[in-house]
């Protein structure tokens, strides 16, 4: 997913009110207010949409801009929002019709609870000023509007509450995306994604894409790693503390003070070393330490001499941390892919194992031996010669799944399977 254009959350973004899922009452309330406000009726000058993330607050405003043909002027938390900036960017816009086509506008101040007290000094006052002076409807959004700082804002605004999206609603939405992407999805799998998103459509769709993209089928086993992922949320902090430590003692303490299992943290470090250390020198040095830690871990397990464990822990914490030259660099860590890959490829590995068992039974070799001594040749034969493949498939009694695995494509597999059927008739 290198560009946002590939993100499903963007690809399937609603463009009409009718396409937005959930929060019907809130949206209706908003539209009633907006229509009155546009007509110049005596209503609140601004609306304050509040509720948990990913339930459609910003989306409502974006869709409103499309449906009512308004120019959307917005400012969100990623912009600095000092008094001067708000005045400069929004002040003018709030007074005059759009330069292009003379359209009316809608002004969105997104994530007001993200305004920083120090850097966005005077920002809230400027927002109040904006609301009072604007010719056009102003909309604010926030997760939590009950901060005392917002009190003057609340008095000025029409408050509209957004709720979490219910699981069944989310499931049917995810299902529609799957259908559009040509994915056959198990209900149970979608339900797990929906449940753990906590009513957040954005995170549900992102999770769905991470798991299902490029698949033809989405099964329960594919989503199991999500649950695993949730359990280790604290790992991000532990990781940062280890890598940022200035002394060996601090690096070791970062692991010791965590409740997470050291084996799990080991996997996290393994995953994130190349992200933390982009330079080849640092990376090689850090991996050297980590691989030595692994050797000590192995010895500890084998000899059951747990006193040896502390050397392994030294190397995996202090060893990888002291590599850095200079200051800690902020790094966006990621979940260990290995666990994810293992669970996503479970079906493939099961199929491969059954093929190898079939070979083992006929060819006097272990299944492990079959992987290296037979599988590569069978793969080759199944890709280039359907005739020969059909004969071998029959001899080994392979099923359709196994044939597809070896043939590498559904087309080739079908060709082989139909040859097998033909032979059955002729014999």
């Amino acid at each position: 997913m290198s560009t946002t254009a590939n993100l499903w959350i963007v690809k399937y973004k609603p463009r009409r009110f009718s396409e937005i899922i959930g929060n019907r009452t809130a949206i209706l309330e908003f539209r009633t207010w907006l229509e009155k406000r546009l007509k110049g009726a005596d209503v609140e000058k601004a609306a304050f949409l509040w509720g948990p993330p990913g339930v459609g607050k910003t989306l409502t405003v974006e869709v409103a801009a499309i449906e009512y043909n308004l120019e959307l002027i917005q400012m969100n938390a990623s912009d600095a929002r000092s008094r001067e900036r708000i005045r400069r960017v929004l002040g003018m816009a709030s007074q005059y019709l759009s330069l292009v086509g003379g359209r009316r506008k809608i002004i969105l101040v997104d994530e007001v609870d993200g305004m920083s007290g120090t850097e966005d000094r005077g920002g809230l006052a400027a927002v109040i000023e904006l609301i009072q002076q604007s010719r056009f409807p102003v909309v604010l959004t926030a997760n939590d509007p009950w901060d005392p700082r917002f009190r003057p804002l609340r008095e000025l605004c029409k408050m509209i509450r957004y709720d979490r999206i219910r699981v069944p609603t989310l499931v049917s939405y995810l299902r529609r995306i799957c259908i559009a992407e040509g994915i056959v999805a198990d209900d149970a799998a979608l339900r797990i994604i929906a449940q753990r998103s906590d009513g957040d459509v954005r995170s549900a769709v992102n999770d769905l894409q991470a798991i299902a993209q490029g698949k033809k089928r989405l099964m329960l086993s594919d989503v199991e790693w999500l649950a695993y992922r949730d359990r280790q949320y604290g790992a991000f902090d532990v990781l940062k503390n280890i890598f940022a430590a200035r002394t060996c003692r601090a690096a070791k303490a970062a692991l010791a003070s965590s409740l997470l299992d050291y084996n799990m943290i080991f996997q996290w470090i393994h995953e994130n070393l190349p992200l933390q250390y982009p330079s080849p020198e640092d990376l090689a040095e850090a991996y050297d330490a980590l691989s030595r830690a692994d050797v000590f871990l192995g010895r500890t397990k084998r000899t059951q001499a747990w006193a040896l464990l502390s050397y392994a822990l030294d190397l995996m914490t202090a060893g990888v941390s002291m590599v850095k030259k200079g200051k800690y660099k902020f790094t966006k860590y990621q979940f260990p892919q290995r666990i994810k890959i293992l669970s996503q490829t479970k079906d493939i590995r099961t199929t491969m194992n059954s093929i190898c068992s079939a070979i083992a039974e006929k060819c006097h070799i272990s299944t492990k031996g079959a992987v290296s001594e037979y599988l590569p040749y069978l793969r080759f034969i199944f890709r280039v010669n359907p005739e020969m493949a059909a004969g071998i498939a029959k001899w080994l009694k392979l099923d359709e799944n196994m044939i597809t695995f070896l043939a590498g494509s559904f087309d080739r597999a079908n060709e082989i399977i139909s040859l097998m059927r033909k032979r059955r008739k002729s014999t």
Partner: protein
Amino acid sequence: MPIDATMMLWTEKYRPKTLDEVVNQKEVVERVKQFVKTKNVPHMLFAGPPGTGKTTVALALSRELYGENWRQNVLELNASDERGIQIVRERVKDYARTMPIGDVPFKIIILDEADNMTADAQQALRRTMELYTRTCRFILIANYSSKIIEPIQSRCAIFRFQPLRDEDIAARIRYIAEKEGVDLREDGLKAILYVAEGDLRRAINSLQAAAALGVVDEKAVFRVVGRASPVEIREMLQLALSGNFIKAREKLRELMIAYGLSGVDIVRQIHREVFALKIPEEAKVKLADRIGEINFRMVEGADEEVQLSALLAYFALFGENLRGS
């Protein structure tokens, strides 16, 4: 080509049924024949490189000893798949204690890939061998006899299988090609011998896969081998050397998980590839040293993915230094 209902893999179709058919291994075969003649077989340990006929001799011996009903008197186990102590205790014991059928006073247990058994399982096996000698004889098969514990070795007649000579493999490959109506060219045969490295199973598999393309010439054989020893390993090394560690590690995971290659398989391939790289000769020695260390750690039971990642990181640094100088 006549349409058969099924097609056996040629390694099985042309596996010798009798001791006389066995390719080379003259000394082993002569001695084993004596056992058949006297209907007295000691415990045996067959040791030697892969694809040299160890399993084949064990099976042919069983056939000649028991005739038609050999399967009733022979238990074939693969220690790599069923290597726990539990298996030795239960399956082997249950089988060993019942009486044989026919006029031979003992049964045979073939324990293939026995060098993959844990030391504990081998100890358990040793006891079983002693207890049931009267009704049961063992044929242990291993690549390395040194991996079999001393007490078992001392109870076995040890047979060392020699790597097959090229002319023996060539004769067998020609024979199979003729039987199967394969158009085998001289350069194709040479290529098969080159990739087989004395391993007849690999030679036959290469022949069959190349025959899937039609004419078996050098080009066909190398196409097969390109697939069989994944080009991905070379790609992975190139990625690491060019400094793209993250992509290289992705490749590594693909090889291990999707292709099912073991870490040891991969490190051996890397070892082979290193000498084909276009880098200074003295550098190759340094890399080999590092690869050896990683291989050793994995044999000792270290985490394969972590160790190989460390190796790739070393390659990445190495590539960087090469470009710098």
